[in-house]
């Protein structure tokens, strides 16, 4: 909402600076987003141009010495140019000749001295203005020059040059009463506050609304415009009828009438205000409807009465409000033919639709230069229907903006009356002394209450009932105090106050706003602390992420939205396989982000691919949900996952070492082992994996106590080929985080540090190539029993010495007892048991 300061001051005295006013409004929930100066001096420049500016103030300040009101007494032809004229002008200090090309002066050219001088905005040499001939706002200083042989050192200004609007077709012609010689800034300098209207404050989308807030916040009286119609006008009886089909859609409809209006422009002062408020002046009649809408917040619509009579076949027109019929169409003011929905409400007459109720008028009955008699509509429309119509028709308007948020029905008649008065003032005509007023669904007379206890309980401040009543009274709530309770009647311009317990909260907010949020002391909850809850999944997730970072992996966080094609890359080894269903977005921003991900690994691999050429070595992980649709349920299973991926060299080059060894299966497996270790997950087993994304011979499924935790391995060559990776291998893993949480031990036992020294022994065992390391180790552990405390594979050897199809696995073993030092005999016994066991279990022979 654009609020011209001079207009605001019509309703309330303001003795605050622009900065103070902005702060007061902002701190009451009417955020001043910026201030546009149209003439007034910039308070920050006056205060020494500080760097900190709590409100953004910009625009043009008019130098009182250089920009003044002047009068043109005669418009004369230019001796050398048809498209220029010379003005005999008085700027209050004396007579001058000023050259201009303004087309709106040509009608006065050569007609001699003007009977009624034209008042204009006059700029002297050295004035700072916007350049009217350049696009946008380019500041320039008026310099002395010669145009076609005539001296030019000053000029008469257009709106663009003064920073009022983009208008540069002609110069501004001020109202006749503008005092010649007065500094322009004094006469019409202004500032426009851009106030952000919150959705629940639509009552303040008007000058009076803002003024009411300023009055309440600064304890000044509010001057509301007078709305009593002259009693001596003709009566509207028999001139028009109203038929409301559904009061739920149209709670009130008011008509007023003006006879014999002249179609002419509004006074310049009115045009200026409309422009500063962001609307385009049209003519005095239409301007009055817009002016009053901005003034009190009631949108209005003017019909050409004679057109309505004609449509009614010369009979008394009947205005009918109803929902649109199926397939009904209407051509609106903007020339668009609109196909209407059944929820759209129309203003019609007996001949058909006239306008989209509360949004935009129809073309046929609009005000034309021939219009003399005006039927003026002020109505109240259902905000839901208005809102649906705006969305459906993709049509926004100032009226629709207000009606879609709710306008109080009391404003219908106030708006019509005020508008008739303004119209008669600016376009002439006779106002009918009464209104046609159908009000089938009167607004609820909302009565709410709030007690001193409510204020204490919700706001934490102690206020007496009288103080509460005084604060609310400043916003026109009618208050009655009984004991500790304030009984409140809501004023007839707002619809945001509820009753009962909701009303208490609504009123508490108003009390807090006017009292000042800043004055409410900060406290800390005295309330009892809720019981603490165990949050094992959250703790484990944190531990997983921190452990992986410690192990040198970089965390990534990807968009959860992806495309089926991206995810399908992972199943490239089975390209024909049908893709499972995903949570699909109905209104995606792009096909690339059209479903919720099903695979976290796919996301991490995308990121790995994107970064692969930036680093020799990359190791990434992500923790987060995947979204798995559940048959028959509206919501998916949001299953937490952990994905890891790494590629490149094992060790990045240093200046003295250049190791080209690549990361392989065992690097990632080592990370997984360390992770499981940190989670104290025991009894881990590794079985061959059957997963389409992985190399069948270089991948494994990881389980703990028989429960599958996840899969890890090298990407299947066909899958890898779908990505842009240079390195020979990409290692990847995906784990079920919930399974990790379940398997992780929150309690575990610590073994005492041994007191007696171990017996250390190396054993090299020759086995068939097909024997798995895990089985050899299991047999060693079985044979060794409790006294075997450590088994570490330290070498694998293949060669002629041990025969083809064989391998030698070398283990470093520790034998140790908790209560004594093992004798050589005992150690030998353990060794013999191990050798027997490995021979039985895996056919191993001791390599001698």
């Amino acid at each position: 909402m654009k609020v011209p300061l001079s207009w605001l001051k019509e309703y309330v005295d303001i003795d605050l600076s622009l900065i103070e006013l902005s702060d007061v409004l902002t701190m009451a929930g009417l955020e001043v987003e910026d201030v546009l100066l149209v003439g007034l001096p910039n308070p920050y420049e006056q205060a020494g141009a500080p760097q900190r500016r709590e409100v953004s103030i910009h625009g043009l300040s008019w130098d009182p010495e250089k920009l003044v009101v002047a009068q043109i007494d005669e418009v004369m032809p230019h001796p050398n140019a048809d498209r220029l004229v010379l003005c005999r002008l008085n700027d209050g200090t004396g007579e001058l000749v000023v050259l201009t090309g303004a087309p709106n002066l040509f009608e006065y050219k050569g007609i001699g001295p003007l009977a009624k001088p034209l008042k204009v905005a006059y700029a002297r040499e050295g004035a700072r203005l916007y350049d009217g001939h350049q696009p946008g706002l380019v500041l320039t200083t008026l310099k002395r020059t010669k145009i076609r042989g005539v001296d030019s050192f000053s000029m008469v200004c257009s709106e663009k040059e003064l920073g009022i609007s983009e208008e540069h077709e002609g110069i501004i012609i001020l109202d006749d009463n503008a005092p010649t010689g007065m500094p322009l800034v004094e006469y019409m300098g202004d500032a426009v506050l851009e106030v952000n209207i919150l959705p629940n404050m639509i009552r303040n989308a008007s000058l009076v609304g803002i003024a009411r807030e300023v009055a309440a916040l600064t304890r000044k009286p509010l001057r509301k415009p007078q709305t009593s119609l002259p009693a001596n006008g003709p009566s509207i009886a028999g001139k028009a009828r109203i038929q409301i089909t559904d009061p739920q859609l149209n709670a009130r409809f008011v008509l007023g009438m003006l006879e014999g209006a002249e179609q002419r422009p509004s006074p310049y002062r009115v045009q200026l205000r409309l422009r500063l408020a962001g609307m385009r002046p049209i003519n005095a009649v239409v301007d009055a409807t817009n002016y009053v809408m901005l003034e009190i917040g009631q949108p209005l619509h003017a019909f050409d009465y004679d057109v309505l009579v004609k449509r009614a076949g010369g009979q008394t027109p009947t205005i009918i409000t109803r929902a649109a019929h199926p397939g009904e169409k209407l051509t609106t003011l903007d020339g668009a033919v609109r196909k209407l929905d059944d929820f759209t409400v129309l203003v019609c007459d007996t001949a058909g639709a006239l306008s989209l109720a509360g949004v935009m008028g129809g073309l046929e009955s609009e005000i034309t230069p021939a219009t003399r008699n005006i039927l003026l509509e002020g109505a109240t429309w259902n905000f839901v229907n208005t809102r649906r119509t705006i969305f459906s028709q993709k049509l926004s308007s100032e009226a629709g903006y207000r009606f879609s948020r709710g306008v109080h029905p009391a404003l219908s008649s106030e708006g019509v009356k005020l508008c008739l008065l303004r119209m008669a003032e600016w376009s002439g005509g006779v106002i009918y002394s009464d209104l046609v007023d159908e009000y089938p669904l009167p607004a609820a007379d909302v009565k709410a209450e709030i007690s001193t206890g409510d204020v204490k309980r919700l706001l934490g401040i102690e206020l007496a009932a009288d103080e509460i009543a005084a604060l609310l009274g400043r916003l026109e709530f009618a208050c009655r105090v009984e004991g500790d309770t304030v009984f409140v009647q809501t004023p007839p311009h707002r619809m945001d106050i509820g009753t009962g317990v909701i009303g208490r909260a609504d009123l508490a907010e108003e009390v807090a706003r006017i009292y000042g949020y800043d004055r409410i002391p900060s406290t800390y909850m005295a309330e009892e602390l809720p019981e603490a809850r165990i949050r094992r999944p959250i703790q484990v997730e944190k531990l997983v992420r921190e452990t992986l970072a410690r192990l040198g992996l970089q965390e990534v966080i990807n968009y959860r939205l992806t495309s089926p094609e991206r995810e399908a890359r992972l199943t490239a080894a089975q390209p024909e396989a049908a893709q499972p269903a995903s949570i699909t977005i109905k209104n995606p921003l792009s096909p690339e982000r059209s479903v919720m991900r099903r695979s976290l690994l796919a996301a991490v691999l995308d990121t790995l691919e994107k970064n692969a050429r930036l680093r020799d070595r990359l190791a990434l992980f992500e923790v987060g949900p995947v979204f798995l649709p559940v048959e028959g349920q509206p919501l998916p299973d949001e299953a937490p996952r952990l994905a890891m991926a790494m590629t490149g060299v094992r060790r990045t080059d240093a200046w003295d070492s250049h190791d080209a060894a690549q990361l392989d299966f065992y690097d990632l497996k080592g990370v997984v082992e360390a992770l499981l270790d940190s989670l104290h997950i025991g009894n881990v087993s590794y079985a061959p994996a059957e997963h389409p994304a992985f190399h069948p011979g270089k991948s494994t499924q990881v389980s703990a106590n028989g429960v599958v935790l996840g899969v890890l391995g090298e990407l299947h060559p066909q899958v890898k080929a779908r990505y842009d990776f240079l390195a020979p291998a990409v290692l990847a893993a995906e784990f079920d985080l919930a399974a990790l949480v379940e398997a992780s031990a929150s309690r575990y036992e610590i073994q005492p540090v041994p007191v007696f020294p171990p017996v250390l022994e190396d054993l090299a065992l020759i086995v068939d190539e097909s024997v798995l390391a895990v089985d050899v180790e299991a047999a060693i552990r079985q044979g060794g029993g409790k006294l075997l405390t450590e088994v570490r594979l330290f070498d694998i050897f293949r060669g002629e010495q041990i025969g083809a199809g064989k391998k030698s696995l070398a283990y470093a073993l520790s034998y140790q007892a908790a209560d004594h030092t093992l004798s050589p005999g005992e150690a030998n016994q353990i060794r013999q048991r191990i050798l027997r066991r490995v021979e039985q279990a895996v056919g191993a022979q001791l390599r001698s």
Partner: protein
Amino acid sequence: MGEDVNILEELDRVQQKGLDALASVQNEADLQAWRTAHLGRSAPVMLAFTRLGQISKEMRPAVGQKANQVKVALETALEARAEVVKNASLRQKLDTEQLDVTLPGRRPTLGRLHPAAQALSEIIHIFEEMGFQEYRSPEVETDEVNFELLNIPAHHPARDMWDTFHTTVPGTILRTHTSPGQIHAMRELCPKPIRVILPGMVYRYEQTNASHEMQFNQVELLAVGKNITLGDLKGTIEGFARRMFGETVRVRMRPSYFPFTEPSADVVMECFVCDSKGCQVCKYSGWLEIAGCGMLHPVVLQNGGYDPAVYSGFAAGLGPERIALLKYQVDDIRNFWQNDIRFLEQF
């Protein structure tokens, strides 16, 4: 007898000669040679011991004693010299072992948490210290929980505040804020008092640009109890801001509007980048917006199972990425989910 006296003098000379020779010993090898020559088996002083038998009985104790003194003197001198030589040779060794300490070290790979996760956990940690516990709720939500139970009926003007991703399942959407977690938490915990934080990803149907993302984290704060006030909300947010941004930071609450809170407020904080003097980050206003908050709307309390005549509470929402943007002066929010390693490695 005279010869025996000469032996004593001889021993004095042996000592003097030994000490003189020792003075010029500079290294370990010479030291060894000196030891062999002056304290070895055939060194003069050692020979003096072996020849003691040939010395007259009267002189024998004197000569023995003298030889012993000489031996001890030489040994002591040797030890002292050895120390000097060792120190000198160590010094010499150290002098030749000069590294170029400006050459780069061999770094183990340092993994890092994602910057958004770091910001999130910093915020969570602060609120945990203040007695709030983490609570999670789903990212794919029903329209009912995301909007209607939060006092935002269909076609309510407030719906304009959230551009929504709809799924192909009618009534199922991607949550537009973490606030639906309020309903889940209340319904689970009612009638107990509540003090939880609800962090997580939310989604907006919004073209992405430098300051807008379609997906971002929020942290929702929720407290429900019998005596919780707007002052408590203010104190809690201030407590957070001081821990997050510094002890002296000043916070202001301005009235605002959210359908699920009443009264509602925006929280602005003095700009920590410029110390509130005015800079690009705070757009020269001296203030930064850090949170939206308010007292729980009676309808929301009711929908959560709490009687609004008895219970009150507050909710607040913060954006971790926005805080990280401000804190590290990142100029484009899209950096967070682009996951360019060159960005991530800087945190």
